[in-house]
């Protein structure tokens, strides 16, 4: 596969200018992820309201373009979703990367799906899968913690 399939415009853009970077105001749940082999780190901050909706979502972290872009895209897409939908989005994303499944969410807009799929090239680069999935696993932890 062409290396440019991995480093698409949109990924390079998110990697260089990550959206929702920093701690969002009034966050009430957070968790961190870490890949000890390469040193990549991510910290996810979420503000969850009583109706089980993710009111606000942001991240901090350091790492490669893939991991930053992935975290950035994650916050863009999941912000504003409710718990259940968020979990389905996470599952679909991980399935796309790990099991090469298609994303087919009714609640997502066409361009949101396209954005998520920009990361699908990662599946051809097994050592980079963790870079792409870490933020998503971490958000999953945030939601898990909050449930308890």
């Amino acid at each position, binding site marked *: 596969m062409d290396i440019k399939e991995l480093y698409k415009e949109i990924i390079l853009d998110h990697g260089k200018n990550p959206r929702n970077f920093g701690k969002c105001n009034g966050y009430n749940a957070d968790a961190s992820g*870490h890949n*000890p*082999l390469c040193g990549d780190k991510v910290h996810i901050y979420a503000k969850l309201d009583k109706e089980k909706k993710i009111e606000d979502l942001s991240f901090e972290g350091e790492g490669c373009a893939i991991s930053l872009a992935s975290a950035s895209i994650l916050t863009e897409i999941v912000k504003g979703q409710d718990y259940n939908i968020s979990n389905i989005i996470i599952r679909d994303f991980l399935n796309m990367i790990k099991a090469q499944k298609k994303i087919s969410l009714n609640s997502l807009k066409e361009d949101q799906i396209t954005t998520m799929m920009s990361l699908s090239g990662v599946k051809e*680069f*097994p050592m*980079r899968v963790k870079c792409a999935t870490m933020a998503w696993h971490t958000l999953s932890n945030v939601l898990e913690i909050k449930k308890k």
Partner: protein
Amino acid sequence: MKINNIKKKFPIFKKKINGKNLIYLDSANSSQKPQSVINRMSYFYENEFSNVGRSVHTLAVEATNAFEKTRDLVQKFINSKYREEIVFTKGATEAINLVASTFGDKFINKGDEIILTELEHHSNYVPWHFLRETKGAVIKFSKLNDRLEIDPDDISKLINNRTKIIAVTHISNVTGGVTPLKKIIDIAKSKNIPVLVDGTQGAPHLKLDMQKLDCDFYAISCHKLYGPNGLGILYGKKNWLDQLSPYQGGGGMINEVKKENISYAETPTKFEAGTMQTAEVVAFGESIKLIDKLGIKNIYDHEEKVLNYGIEKLKRDNNVHLIGSPKEKASVISFTLKGIHPHDIATILDDDGVAIRAGHHCCQILHEKLGVPATARASIGLYNTLEDMDILYESINKCKKIFS
């Protein structure tokens, strides 16, 4: 795949020893390697070699995948619940040292007791002895019965509220006796005592099922399983491995390293410090494939036929004294010959191409009990045949003639 023709898959049997065919009866020491294992290793070095788990380039990715695939194969092979329960070590010896050291650090204090048996290999005694030296632990040896079998009732009697662990062999490398593990583990579980099984001789002959067996630790040597040198496996229940501290420190086993403190990776990574035996692990996958293709049950049946045939033959000779008479026995015939020292037997047999081992087989406690410093041992692998037993028998006769 037919077991009858299996010798052909092991290139060493093309070799002549003193002009004779090699009759290899030293598999309990280390088994010969099939061409598939040897080729896999060469192929790996020639085409795929890289360090695993560290770099992101193509070779590293392929090597890491091949390495981890063997972990999956081992998981299936021993039917452990989680793949994280498989730790690669240098051998069974290191596997047992790992447990004795880390379990001992955490759970064994002065006066605490460790139960072993008189049948244990030094590798399942010396590591525990270290805890006697460093921690003041007490070692109790469970006595064998007259057949030289491990007796669960005797183990049961040794247990008290200071007992911290029971470490016992699966199959004796001297008598071939198969330990009644299920009984021992039931007793131990009823008293909440963990059991380590030295499976070095068990793994090559018996179907393994960790979930059914329900032991807490199980040690395997890959080089006795038709696999490469320098590789072993520690199975440990995840719950235990998670509790234990790392054994060796180094690259790959850390989470985060600071000047003041260090945090460690998860199980099993935290036990796999430094560069691993990548090529060996990858090639060991072929051993498992071979065993699976033949079927471990078929291997056992075949070996049992050879074993019983050999025993019957040797029994006819009044000068031969067999060591132990366990009711359930696998793959090993140890014996002495009246008036001839085992070393002399081994040398004379070797002259006929028959490779056996003479000595205490790293079981001095047992040999002290037997009252002899050494025995001769013929041990059987999947490639041995009835004919091998005939040649062994004839060669023993030659010993007698020379010494008559």
